[in-house]
């Protein structure tokens, strides 16, 4: 099955400013398999996924390594969030 993975923030600059990438998965694949696939095809993104600097969401929910992916899922890679304004305190 073919899926589009949405990319946000700095991740886009790692794939030539694309907003998503297309990946081929097989039935029963889990999020861990997706990460392995990115380690091979997009090593920089793969490393960020492995270090949990970037997290995976499926259908607008945070996913876990063992979450199974189905063909209708909306998958996105989320770099560290930076909404709001400023910081809590001076650093």
């Amino acid at each position, binding site marked *: 099955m073919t899926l589009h993975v949405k990319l946000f*923030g700095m991740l886009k600059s790692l794939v030539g400013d694309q907003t998503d990438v297309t990946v081929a998965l097989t039935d029963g694949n889990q999020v861990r398999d997706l990460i392995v696939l990115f380690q091979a095809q997009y090593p920089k993104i793969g490393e960020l996924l492995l270090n949990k600097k970037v997290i995976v969401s499926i259908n607008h929910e945070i996913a876990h390594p063992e979450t199974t992916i189905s063909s209708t899922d909306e998958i996105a890679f989320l770099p560290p969030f930076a*909404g*709001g304004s400023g910081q809590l305190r001076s650093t």
Partner: protein
Amino acid sequence: MSMVNVDIEASMLVRVQRENFSVDAEIDRVRAQSKRIGGIATFLGTARDRSKGRDVSGISFEHYEGMAQKTLREIRERALKDFDIIEVLILHRYGEIDIGENIVLIVVGAEHRADAFQACRWCIDELKQITPIWKREQTPQGEEWVEEHP
């Protein structure tokens, strides 16, 4: 019909939008929910001209459409459940934002001010931690995605 109205109303109380907003108009949405409200605590985040020791000439925000709104709705619902408050409004802008302009607004209406302050502070802290929104800063060294910590 009343269900539709409730949904429209709730959708105005949690928004991610490009346009600027009026704090008065947003406060009035909260105030309109109940005459029991005696204290309204508000947090307005604005674009600073410095960040981590660098000059910043402008910022822009990107959000994950759908998931950002879902997350903010969940924050609002948890605040209404966990604090003794009457209403919460959460609003975040996306796109280009000039220095000094509005970025984010939290408005909490409660009978008593201690509850309003606590919930307002919790909402902005939580928003920063779990909402899929990203920031890009324009600095003299170029543009850069920011990794901000709460």
